[in-house]
Structure formats: structure tokens, C-alpha cells
């Protein structure tokens, strides 16, 4: 425990470099999942139909896919003998970001959908009686649903920061390049270096607490 705190407080370059790297990957992934995730969530929350019901089921299932499975599928796509192998994304940052974006997307879509579905029906009725349609209606939904969407993004960020399956498979845990907090913990723990593993563990715990707190206070108020 002492070693963990010492590493963090002393500003140890490698430790903080790993922390910064992890957060960068997570931030980019969450950002890339923003537009498609929110768009998908808004579409799913529209008038019920066959395709929409199917989408809700599929997206819901995708939020529960094990991270290693996502990692495996992307691995096969971007490995040398895969269709996208020429881009050199495997065992590099882009590979991790792609995998984590695919993890974040269903979470954002699913949370946006459920949040919008819980919007007061009076909201939709008021828009209808004002004859608001099309782009104006979309604008009103974005405005009214902003807290829901922010909460969804924060939740997705928390999820990808704490995952290890994608980061390990697609990043390869290369020191100074693709080593994240989670893959570093896996390595340090397997070698018995619990001090540094704990340092990362504390940071991840802190992030998880902040994320949960933020999601909680961003919940829309009752009216």
C-alpha cells in the first residue's frame, strides 16, 4: 500500500504515463461512440416497429458481450492476414481504440434509448400539439435528453477504462506504447509486483466512484 501511494504521489513517470495513456484511449473511444451511439439510441426510442424492436434486443445483447470476444473479432480484422491488416493498427493505439469504441457504442445507444423512453409522455404530446416535426423535433429531444446522453457517455467511459480483454488482445501490453492500467495490473500481479498493481487499482477505483457519482447526479429530475 505504501509503495502504491509513493508511486502515485511522487509523480513516477512510467506510472503516470500509463495512467494518461489509458485515459486517452478511453476518451477517444467514448468520443467516437458519441455520434453513432446517440443517433442509434434516438432512433430506437422512436415509434415502435419490427426493426426497432429487433435493434433494441440486439443492442441490449451486445452490451453484455465479453470484452475478449470483441477483442478477438477485431483482432481477426486488423491482423496481418486479415482484411484490414495493412493499416498496422494491431498492437498499437488505434487497435485498442477501435475495440473500445465497439464496446462503448452499444452502451451509449442502450442507455440513451432507455432514458428517452422514460421521458414524460407529456413532452411528446406537447411537441405534437405544437406541430413540431423533423429537425426541430430532433433539436428538442437533444435538449431535453441532454442529461440522459451525458450520463450514457460517462457510463461508457467508465466501462472502457476498466476493461482488460480488448486492451490486452489488441494492444499487446507493450511498455510505453499500449500498456494500460488494466493490462499493467494483470502483468504486475502475475509477477508479484503488487505495489504498482495497487497504485493502478486505486486510480481505477477512484475513476469508478467519480463515474458513478456523476451518472447519479445527472439523472433527470422528477417533474
Amino acid at each position, binding site marked *: 500500500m505504501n509503495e502504491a501511494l509513493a508511486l502515485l504521489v511522487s509523480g513516477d513517470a512510467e506510472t503516470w504515463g500509463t495512467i494518461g495513456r489509458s485515459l486517452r484511449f478511453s476518451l477517444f473511444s467514448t468520443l467516437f461512440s458519441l455520434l453513432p451511439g446517440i443517433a442509434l439510441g434516438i432512433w430506437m426510442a422512436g415509434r415502435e416497429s419490427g426493426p426497432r424492436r429487433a435493434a433494441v434486443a440486439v443492442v441490449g445483447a451486445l452490451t453484455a458481450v465479453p470484452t475478449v470476444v470483441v477483442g478477438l473479432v477485431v483482432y481477426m480484422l486488423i491482423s496481418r492476414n486479415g482484411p484490414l491488416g495493412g493499416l498496422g493498427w494491431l498492437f498499437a493505439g488505434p487497435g485498442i481504440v477501435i475495440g473500445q469504441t465497439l464496446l462503448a457504442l452499444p452502451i451509449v445507444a442502450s442507455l440513451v434509448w432507455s432514458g428517452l423512453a422514460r421521458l414524460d409522455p407529456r413532452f411528446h404530446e*406537447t411537441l405534437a*400539439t*405544437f*406541430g413540431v416535426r423533423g429537425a426541430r423535433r430532433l433539436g*428538442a429531444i437533444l435538449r*431535453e435528453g441532454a442529461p440522459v446522453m451525458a450520463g450514457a457517455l460517462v457510463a461508457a467511459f467508465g466501462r472502457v477504462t476498466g476493461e482488460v480483454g480488448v486492451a490486452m488482445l489488441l494492444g499487446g501490453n507493450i511498455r510505453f506504447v499500449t500498456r494500460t492500467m488494466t493490462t499493467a495490473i494483470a502483468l504486475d500481479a502475475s509477477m508479484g509486483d503488487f505495489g504498482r498493481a495497487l497504485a493502478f487499482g486505486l486510480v481505477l477505483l477512484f475513476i469508478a466512484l467519480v463515474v458513478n457519482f456523476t451518472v447519479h447526479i445527472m439523472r433527470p429530475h422528477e417533474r
Partner: protein
Amino acid sequence: MNAECLFSVEGLTLRYGAGPFCRRALHIPALSLRRGQSLAFVGPNGSGKTSLLKVLNGLIAPSEGRALFLGDETRSSPSLRARSVYLHQHPWLFAGTVSYNVAFGCRGLSRSEVGARVGESLALVGLAGFERRSYRALSGGEAQRVALARAFARGADVLLLDEPTASADAESTGRIGSALAEAARRGATIIFSTHEEDFARACATRLLRLEEGLIVSDRESGS
């Protein structure tokens, strides 16, 4: 001399639920509402007042029969949308300032024109100076008056209100009454439901009494 007939109802039946839970909410063979009338639906809870308002407003489709506005089905009438505003029993305001809400219905006006319109409408309901207030910082009665101001700002000449005084204290009730009277003086058609008989008699020129979905009396007072 007959004023223009705005709403007409023919053979209307409305049912909720299905199978053993099917409940007949409304059964109205004929009804017509003329322009410039102030009409109140009165009756106990569950008598169908809100349902009738929602059918007239096109928010619900009849199970049998037709509800028409100027000859078009209310469910799909563009002129209804352009000319009418609906107020829920518990007022719905968008997330934003009072000014944002009141200005919501204004279309095609310049910034200064909108500002003037907002100020005028707020003055009508006795809320002058409330422009900057947040939607969350209003009492029930004040929120209802803002919703009413929003209707006036839109320039709607058909007002449908569900229990406009339900959330209001004595002062708000008085303000709402005088605002409606002013609107009637300017030629608006006002249709509202209420269980407060005094308010109905004070603000309406025609009283429709409903019981279990049927019209049991339809009286026009002089003046």
C-alpha cells in the same frame, strides 16, 4: 347567426383496453363547437373530460366515429396544429428559462419581436419580469400560467385546457381566469375541463356536463 363551426363530433365512441378489461370512456353521438365560444366540460373524475379533450386535440384516435376540425380528422389536421394549443393538467415546461418556454411557439419572428411577444404574454398572465426564471423555480400555479403565456405567444386562437386550475392557488386561479377572459374578448375559442363548478360558471358561456362518458346536459348561459 351561426358563427363558424370549428369542431364537430359524429358517432364518437372511445374505448380503452381490450378483452375483459375493455372500458368505454366516451360515447357522444353528436357535438359541435363554434368559434368564439367559451366551453367548459364539467363532471366527476373519470367522466371522460380529459379523454374528450384529447380526442378533440387529435392526441387520441376514436375507436368509432369521427372527430373533425374544420372538416379534417383532428388526428391529422394541420390547421388544428397551427391554430390550437393544449395545456396538460399538470403543466409541462421544457428544460430552460421561462422566456425559452414562452417563446417556443413563436415562428418566423425577429429576435426583438419575439422578446416583445414574450413580455406581452407574461403580462397577460400576471408574470411580468419572470423571463429569466428557471423552469424548476416555479410553483404549480406559476408553471400553469407560463404554459398559458406560451399559448398566447403562439397566437393560437383555439385553447384546450385540461383542469387549468388544478395546480393553482387562489391568486393563480384568478390570474388564469382573467387571462382567459381577455383571450375570449379577443375572439379566441376556449375549451376546458374542470371539476370546479364556480370557475366553470365564471369563465364559460356553455357548460357540458359529462357522466361516465355521456353528455347529460348541455346549457348555454346568456352573455
